[in-house]
């Protein structure tokens, strides 16, 4: 009862963080860890010296103004940046204790274990069924019954009831929000350990956004999720922990590079930020 009165009387700019972090350990149980990471595009350093630990079965949000390198960092967590000409990562990205940029590591296997959902829904120009079955097929998963796997993935992505009667129809007939859930289902189907989400709701309307956010809560039981978002309310609503990044100008060259300012539980970041820049950003005075 007191809770509800509190939230209704809270000032408008105040962001209500999720209240469920009583069970959240103070230190994340790291499944994915970033140590002294710099990301370069050619000679341009987009991200500088980031240290972060992403907790198992937690949702971690990366927030910050445009150009602070959060998407770049996200893409270096499953070696998607390998595909960009001239991109390179210095430092260590450890997945289950193993450096994923080590010389013997197969980037294909990294991407299978660490899936990614993109900003714009990007279903394949195939049927809904084939969109899901594609990943298991190309990664050589031994699937006893593909129909069951497709149903399981779509159910987990909260899409099964809407599409079960039209599995053979083109994925392009779905709405934007449904397409994005299909992309999440497609990612789940290859049974990854981590799901990276790059502003997954920025192309969606508020109702579709709410559905994706609810879905993220459900998925947290099975997966570790890292999400980049421009929407601070979204970070406050979904994330267990939040990392705030900003862009600093190099004193010599004037090039801007992304740095990690503050990382902690979402409640702490939004209610008692330690760094002045974090406070300015979340209270809307900057960025």
């Amino acid at each position, binding site marked *: 009862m007191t809770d509800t009165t509190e939230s209704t009387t809270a000032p408008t700019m105040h962001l209500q963080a999720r209240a469920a972090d009583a069970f959240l350990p103070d230190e994340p149980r790291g499944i994915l860890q970033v140590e002294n990471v710099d990301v370069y595009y050619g000679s341009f350093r987009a991200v500088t010296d980031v240290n972060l630990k992403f907790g198992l079965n937690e949702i971690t949000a990366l927030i910050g103004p445009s150009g602070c390198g959060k998407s770049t960092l996200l893409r270096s967590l499953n070696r998607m940046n390998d*595909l960009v000409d001239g991109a390179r990562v210095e430092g260590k990205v450890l997945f289950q204790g193993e450096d994923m940029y080590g010389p013997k590591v197969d980037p294909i296997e990294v991407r299978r274990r660490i*899936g990614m959902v993109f900003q714009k829904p*990007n279903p*394949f120009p195939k049927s809904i069924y084939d969109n899901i079955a*594609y990943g298991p097929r190309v990664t050589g998963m031994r699937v006893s019954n593909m129909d069951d796997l497709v149903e399981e993935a779509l159910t987990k992505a909260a899409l099964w009831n809407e599409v079960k009667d039209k599995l053979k129809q083109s994925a392009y007939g779905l709405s934007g929000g449904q397409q994005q859930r299909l992309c999440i289902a*497609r990612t789940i189907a290859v049974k990854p350990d981590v799901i990276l989400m790059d502003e997954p709701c920025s192309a969606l309307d508020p109702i579709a956004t709410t559905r994706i956010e609810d879905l993220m809560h459900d998925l947290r039981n099975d997966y570790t999720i890292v999400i980049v978002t421009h929407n601070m309310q979204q970070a406050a609503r979904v994330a267990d922990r939040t990392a705030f990044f900003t862009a600093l100008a190099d004193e010599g060259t004037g090039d801007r590079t992304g740095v990690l300012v503050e990382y902690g539980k979402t409640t702490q970041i939004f209610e008692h930020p330690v760094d002045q820049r974090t406070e300015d950003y979340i209270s809307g005075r900057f960025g």
Partner: protein
Amino acid sequence: MSTIGSTIAGTIRPERPLASGRNGERRPLSLIFLMLLWLSLLIAFGVLVTLVITIIIDGQGQFSWRLFTEFPASDPDRAGARPAILGSAWVIGTTAVMTIPLGVAAAVHLEEFADKKNWFNRMIELNVQNLAAVPSIVYGLLALAFLTMLGVRDKNIVIAGALALSLLILPVIIISTREALRAVPQEIRQGSLALGATQWQTTWRQTLPSAVPGIATGSILALSRALGEAAPLLVLGALVFVSFDPNGLLSGYTTLPIQIFNWTGRPQEGFHQLAAATSVVLLGLLVIMNGLAITIRNRYQKRW
């Protein structure tokens, strides 16, 4: 500050009523420009229509099924273009089989796998574009030199003609395939790679199937260009009078453009009419092929 015409930073918008009776779209300059555009269209279209009507009128005396069933003869009223039609089919078919896989493979490499910053790849790219503009007879000479080098004595065979035409349309097919691949959004490739697919799987199972309509359209248009070519085949000594059906890759042959060329050079009026009628057949074939290309494009066009 009361009206729209008020000054903003020193500029003044002239005050003019909405209903001035003038129409900005009908100013003299606009009208002249519009008329020039219409004139260009009219000239281009007029020439084409005149050409088609002329050959139809010229050839109407010789229009009959005989054109498709009979061999050339010394009497224009008994002659037909059967071997030329079959010869064109053989040469174009062989060209398609030789060129499309090669051209598509080259384009896939350049577009999906090659390092675009590498100077060597960039040089190849530039050269492919230049080769598309080389006159067809040069390819005939190239094929001639190549076959002579190999020691082939009879160069007037189907496979030799197909070789020359392949060289001619290979750059066109490479370019149109690259365009088709480039039209497949990057998000599709990224989505596939993010699931743990290899670059090869992504190309083979996502990018290439999505590009098939574009590739088909480009290939058909390239083949229809090859269908109309006579020069490179004449350089290779293609026969002008064939009284047998071509029956294989090593068979002698003639094609429609060569047959037309031959008949046009005869003194008898009847052969000129025959040439006109055969031109209509060739035009018909080209229209069908281009129509097919357009149908494929419209039908399977992806709306991303």
